[in-house]
């Protein structure tokens, strides 16, 4: 079939750096094409170029043609580029949190886009129909309450789906999805896989940018491999990304493997309840108990919006509207404001939406090194030296260190944030989905670093993540959260092999994307249960 997108010799430069080097690829209708490569290899840059766009300071050249329209020519973006946006190619960005207008209701934006791009969308009911359909396809309920919500009233994963709905409602001929599965729990991810296949089946060209090889294998017919701005291989997915052995190697529980539930509790939270608004309104956690033993690793999983981030923030002392007890080695732990430097050093937290936690005015390294200066009393020079060491172990180069957060890719920043926490040499490390933007190499670097810490310094780790494979790799204990309550907990193996709650079973059932085609699409969650109603 005639390809919808054709890219030839696409080059992107920032200053002297070459971000893309004569990239060529095609995306055909009716199938999913995957763009895969390590973090920082230029995937996002290439995807943006399909719309004739680039980040500030980045210059494009080459040839990009979309449905017969030239979007990029030898001397940069072409004049007609804007005409393809939305109607022909719709792009979903890597950080959808950024992409939603805080002042607009979800439904009104969707209807507006439908009116703009869909035939007959000018009529109100038709537009509303398209909007509802897009919401459903993205895995969100299409009721009035959802349509009237503002972006901030959704959880991270839900916002991802809102952004997807915006892309779908345009009815484009090609969709470009940049890391659509970050922050999605297995159930949602499974649904997403199903959706992508269906889109392709409807004759739409899908370009998928992802680190999630399972997802790529499940949906993409063709794959383009990238590395350092070049296309290194292109072909059938099955050839380029051979399927893993059926059962993922369940890495033996690492290190000293303390007896499950045994060992001194490094961090212990009992009967934790948390709420969003004053007067205990908007409760998000109820009577949650979590225990992380010394040198142990406890994982927290649960559907998107179940309260994992809030739990992590309670433990880090950042979320103050909570009650129940939190203790560090038996000693009660107050909220962050009242913690002593020793206690602050004891519990460190790595953000889920990491870009926001870096200051644009200082270089990333400077910010990372401060931890060691403040909490370990090192001199700034010494601190930077140590920072660089951790930095390199996580697979970052010294060249990244002098940059500001804005010019680092998503995965690079995620690792920087981890380095920032690690420099404190904490007793407890809370990791909130810290591998979502990482490729496999970087993920391995991160897990290795964590394992090293547990073995070397006896650091306890609270791991929050959707990726059950990693959970199996790292965690000793497992806590399953749903709608703010613990529905399952105990030894990881025990929970996974004999789940007690429906939520756990659902998560487990959806973990293998291969089942997607057979299992059909699971029903969407009840949003009302996930998010607290606001009004």
């Amino acid at each position, binding site marked *: 079939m005639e390809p919808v997108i054709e890219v030839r010799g696409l080059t992107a430069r920032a200053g002297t750096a070459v971000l893309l080097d004569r990239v060529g690829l095609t995306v055909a209708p009716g199938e999913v094409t995957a763009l895969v490569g390590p973090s920082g290899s230029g995937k996002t840059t290439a995807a943006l170029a399909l*719309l004739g*766009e680039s980040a500030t300071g980045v210059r494009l050249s080459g040839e990009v043609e979309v449905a017969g329209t030239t979007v990029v020519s030898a001397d940069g973006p072409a004049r007609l580029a*804007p005409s*393809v*946006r*939305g*109607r022909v190619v*719709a*792009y979903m*960005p890597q*950080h959808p949190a*950024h*992409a*939603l*207008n*805080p*002042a*607009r209701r979800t439904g009104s934006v969707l209807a*507006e*886009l439908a009116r*703009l*791009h869909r035939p007959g969308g000018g009529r109100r009911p038709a537009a509303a129909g398209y909007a509802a359909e897009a919401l459903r396809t993205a895995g969100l309920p299409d009721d009035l309450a959802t349509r009237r919500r*503002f972006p*901030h009233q959704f959880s991270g994963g839900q916002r991802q789906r809102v*952004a997807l709905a*915006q*892309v779908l409602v*345009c009815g484009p001929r090609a969709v470009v999805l940049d890391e659509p599965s970050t922050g999605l729990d297995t159930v949602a991810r499974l649904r997403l896989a199903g959706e992508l296949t269906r889109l392709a089946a409807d004759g739409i060209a899908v370009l998928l940018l992802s680190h999630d090889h399972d997802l790529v294998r499940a949906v993409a017919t063709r794959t383009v491999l990238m590395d350092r701005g070049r296309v290194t291989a292109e072909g059938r997915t099955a050839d380029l990304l051979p399927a893993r052995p059926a059962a993922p190697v369940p890495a033996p529980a690492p290190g000293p493997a303390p007896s499950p539930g045994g060992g001194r509790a490094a961090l212990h939270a009992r009967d934790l309840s948390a709420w*969003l*608004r004053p007067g205990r309104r908007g409760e998000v956690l109820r009577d949650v108990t979590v225990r992380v033993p010394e040198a142990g690793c406890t994982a927290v999983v649960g559907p998107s919006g179940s309260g994992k981030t809030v739990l992590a923030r309670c433990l880090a002392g950042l979320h103050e509207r909570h009650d129940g007890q939190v203790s560090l080695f038996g000693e009660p732990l107050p909220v962050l404001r009242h913690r002593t430097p020793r206690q602050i050093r004891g519990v460190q937290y790595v953000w889920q939406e990491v870009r926001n936690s870096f200051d644009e005015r200082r270089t990333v390294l400077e910010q990372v090194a401060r931890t060691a200066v403040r909490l370990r009393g090192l001199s700034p020079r010494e601190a930077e030296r140590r920072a660089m060491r951790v930095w390199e172990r996580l697979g970052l180069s010294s060249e990244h260190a002098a940059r500001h957060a804005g010019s680092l890719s998503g995965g690079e920043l995620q690792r920087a944030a981890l380095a920032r926490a690690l420099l404190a040499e904490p007793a407890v490390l809370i990791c909130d989905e810290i591998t979502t933007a990482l490729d496999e190499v970087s993920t391995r670097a991160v897990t290795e670093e964590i394992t090293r810490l547990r073995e070397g310094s006896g650091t306890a780790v609270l791991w929050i993540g959707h990726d059950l494979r990693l959970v199996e790799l790292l965690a000793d204990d497992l806590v399953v959260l749903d709608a703010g309550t613990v529905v399952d907990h105990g030894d990881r193996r025990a929970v996974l092999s004999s789940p007690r709650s429906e939520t756990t079973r659902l998560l487990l059932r959806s973990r293998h994307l291969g089942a997607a085609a057979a299992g059909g699409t699971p029903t969407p969650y009840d949003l009302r249960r996930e998010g607290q109603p606001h*009004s």
Partner: protein
Amino acid sequence: MLRYALRRGGWTVVQLAVLSVVVFLLTDLLPGDAATVDFNEQAGLDQVAQLREQMGLDRPAAERFADWAHGLLTGDLGTSLVGGGPVSGVLARSVTATAALAAVTLLLLVPLAVVIGLVTGLRAGSRTDRVVSAVTLTLTSVPDFVLALLLVALFSLRLGWLPSTWVGADDLWWQRPELFVLPVAVLLARTVCVLSRQIRAGTLTSLNAGYTVQARRLGVPPVRLVLRHLLPNAAVPGVQELARTGDHLLGGVLVVEAVFAVPGTATALVEAVQNRDVPTVQALTLTLAAVACLLNLAADLVSRRLAPRTEVLR
């Protein structure tokens, strides 16, 4: 939202109550009283004393305040110490002119400021932007009384196109639109500049925001992008500024009222302060304060709708 509005409304009532005490104390702190002022240059001290007794100014302040407050609660604003007429009459007469002036100004102000702010914000750095910004910057820096004097000198005295004052317009001012031209021009000059600069700044930030970029990527055409996606966010600081402008228009147009002899609230308030006419001062201040509160409330409600995330902040 409703809950928030009610809470804010309740707080406004408290605010006004405390303000009335503050205002009473402030006017009471002033040297002299209505009697001394009233008989300035005309009568001796014994006559002043007699007048003071007649006005009830020899009673303790607390008692006078209690009387006034009681009157207020029963819907009576009291009588002016100086003119002897009901304060409500003074209020009604002065508020209409100022309100009309403020309304006309606001009506022109908002579209003008939005257009200028958007155009300069969207074309930041262009020649248009530089020229317009230079003009607005200079205009904000010309004292309004200088501007008023210059406009009168040019348009009334030299060219004779427009009336220079409202003197003799009596109560027929609302039938003569030409009376509004110069005062409104002076009022607009500064406020348009300040407001459009706010909107320009807001436009600049939301122009580069992720949601604007994404909306553009989804093919939203420029005009719609500006009006539906950008403006609601860019308008937040502007809306707050507008509330302050409204307040300024109602209470702070003194210079304009003085130069153009507009019989408005500012003139009435200054005069009442000079006359130490406490009931009139109280009534005028509370009216202005209530309007200011309402404007702020409206601005907050609108901002809250435009930037709904603030509700979670604390």
